[in-house]
């Protein structure tokens, strides 16, 4: 996080990590589509020249708190391709929370494992303490025939402390839920370590409400949590 008291600005960095083609960009697209234009920037996708592989994506989401603090979320994706390890590290630096987007298909297990190890290695290399940075796992592409079952997801949940969310990012399912868990974990973690709530006079509830009020939550499990979502101006 970057906290600038003089300018009353807070910036949080959220990174979507995972194998190539697991649906990281699709997550950001879905968020972009559901966020009110006043509350987000453009979705910036940077591609490398030699092929279509995305280099990284960036989507900013922002609001101003009632106490006048400008809060900005920078959502990044990292390139999945092996050759971009250095870029992955650069993007991952100073992340406040990481979403690990896994491909739910059984055939993708090896790939998921490999990238999970890569995430751990990358975090170590840039000095991010895995116990200090919350990681949320999304099992994406649950619509595909070979996808793991709910029972298998439960198994995965038991294997570690990270929250696990199922998703069909292409249809926007589970994307908001993933973001919600991510932001909640990020906030709680920073609050614990830097007393963020008191520091900028913003509670977790207000923080999340400011963001998710700006999102179209139709059809998500968050709809009832943020009932004023129906496009009321700030």
């Amino acid at each position, binding site marked *: *996080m970057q906290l*600038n*008291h003089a300018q009353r600005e807070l910036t949080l960095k959220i990174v979507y990590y995972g194998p190539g083609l697991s649906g990281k960009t699709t997550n950001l697209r879905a968020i972009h589509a559901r966020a009110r234009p006043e509350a987000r*920037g453009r979705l*910036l996708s940077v591609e490398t020249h030699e092929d279509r592989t995305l*280099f990284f994506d960036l989507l*900013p989401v922002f609001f101003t708190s009632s106490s006048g603090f400008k809060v*900005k979320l920078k959502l990044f994706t990292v390139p999945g391709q092996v050759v971009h390890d*250095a870029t992955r590290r650069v*993007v991952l630096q100073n992340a406040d929370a990481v979403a690990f987007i896994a491909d739910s298909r059984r055939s993708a297990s090896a790939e998921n494992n490999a990238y999970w190890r890569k995430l751990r290695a990358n975090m170590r290399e840039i000095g991010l303490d895995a116990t200090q940075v919350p990681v949320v796992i999304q099992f994406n592409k649950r619509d595909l025939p070979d996808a793991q079952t709910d029972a298998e997801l439960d198994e995965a949940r038991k294997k570690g402390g990270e929250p696990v969310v199922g998703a069909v990012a292409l249809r926007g399912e589970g994307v908001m839920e993933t973001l919600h868990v991510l932001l909640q974990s990020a906030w709680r973690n920073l609050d614990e370590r830097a007393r963020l709530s008191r520091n900028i006079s913003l509670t977790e509830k207000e923080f999340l409400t400011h963001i998710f009020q700006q999102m179209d939550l139709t059809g998500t499990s968050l709809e009832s949590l943020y009932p004023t979502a129906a496009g009321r101006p700030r």
Partner: protein
Amino acid sequence: MSADKPGAVGSGPEHAGSVLQRKASLVDMLDPLSFGDVVDSLGELYRVGIRVLDERGRTLADAKGSNGDFCGFVNTTAQGRARCTALVARLNEGPLTPTQGAQVLPGTSPLGGELLGQPCFTGLRYVVLPVQWEGDVLGRVVFGPFAPEELADVPVALAELEGLELERARELLAHVGRQSEHRVVKMLAHVAQVLAALLASGQKAYLTGQLHLEAMLETQRDLEAQNAQLMRLNQRLKEADRIKSSFLGTVSHELRTPLSSIIGYSEMLAEGLVGALNAEQMQFVRTIIEKGNTLLKLISSILDMSQIEAGKVRLAFEWVDVQELVESSLTSVMPQAQRKGLTVKVHLPEVAQPRVVADREKLSQVVVNLLANAVKFTPGGGQVEVRLSAHGPQPGLVGEGYRIEVEDTGVGIPLDQRERIFQSFYQVDDSPTREYGGAGLGLAIVKSYVEGHGGQVSVTSEVGQGSCFRVVLPKEPPLSGHGPAYIPPPIDTDPERF
């Protein structure tokens, strides 16, 4: 995370300045030349001045409107100039809030935030459009001054300026472009749209470039770390190698001393110094002497090689007569050659006294080693020939010099082994029941010594037909002058050239 100072907590200093952490800035995202052209053409299209400034008040583009003559005329008066300067300063750097006469215009600004209208004391007007990007104010666009459509006559404030010729001012005012409110709104929307498009592509290009750079630096950092690791490893290996050499040196020395005594006492026995020996005793003692000498030679060459590898060899250069050196070397192998029934031929150059700067002892060892090898690997009835000749300048050598060739009709060396025979401990015949003895050090020593003289050694051979070793020596070793010099340890010569 970082509080106020970027990178203050939780991240190394090398990670503090990532472009992904920095706030976007207009200067980074816009190409000044092409952006200037675009703004100029917009100003021309709408006949209005357009100035783009970043958040620090720096001008990025400035298109002139149709107000130049009029404003210039007003500025000829001291009061006019003062008021104009104050107003422009407020427009460029003042707060983006309705203060000091500015008013919020109805509707939202096309890039977000509020549009400000700012009247000028001349009756003209300005509009200020904040440039908001991803929720941050990056700068502003100042339009004007233009004449509002409803402007009838010069205002009182202008008439009150001391020394202004009002009629002339009226005349010039008529030339300032008039803008209807509708037209202003359209213009603002158009400019904002163009700006947004340029910012989007500019930001993308900027981020890509910077991130590429950062990724490269990251890669470089990585490689440097790996490199350092390898260097440490290499250092350890060299150290181990040095220890091995010094150990070998010590051991060889410790072996030689008692061995010399064994040989010495045996010789005294053989010479009958302590009484006559019978025939059988004499034969035993001679065998002890012979095997002792073989062992002594072996130990000597191990000692030589270990000193070469430890970088401890010094060459004592002096003028040496090569012909004399070749002839005296021959005498040391003649008895063995005669015993095997080999023909030994010698070709020497016509010129008298072919002299080179060399270490007499080491060069002699080179020739003896080559001759001894030839004799050793040539079956009975074969031939060993040594040739000495002068040569002109050669590639890889400094100046002229001499060539010493030792040719035999021995077993020969297979092609794939011709490089390796110059390595320490290498044996062409690697079988446990080796026909030819030796530690495999002779040629490695030859190579080191020859190269220590700035020369080269090479071999041509045909299996079953024989081999020819050729040593090329410069008249004077490069860089040496006449004095002691180090032979660099062989392990360091090739990989660490720079």
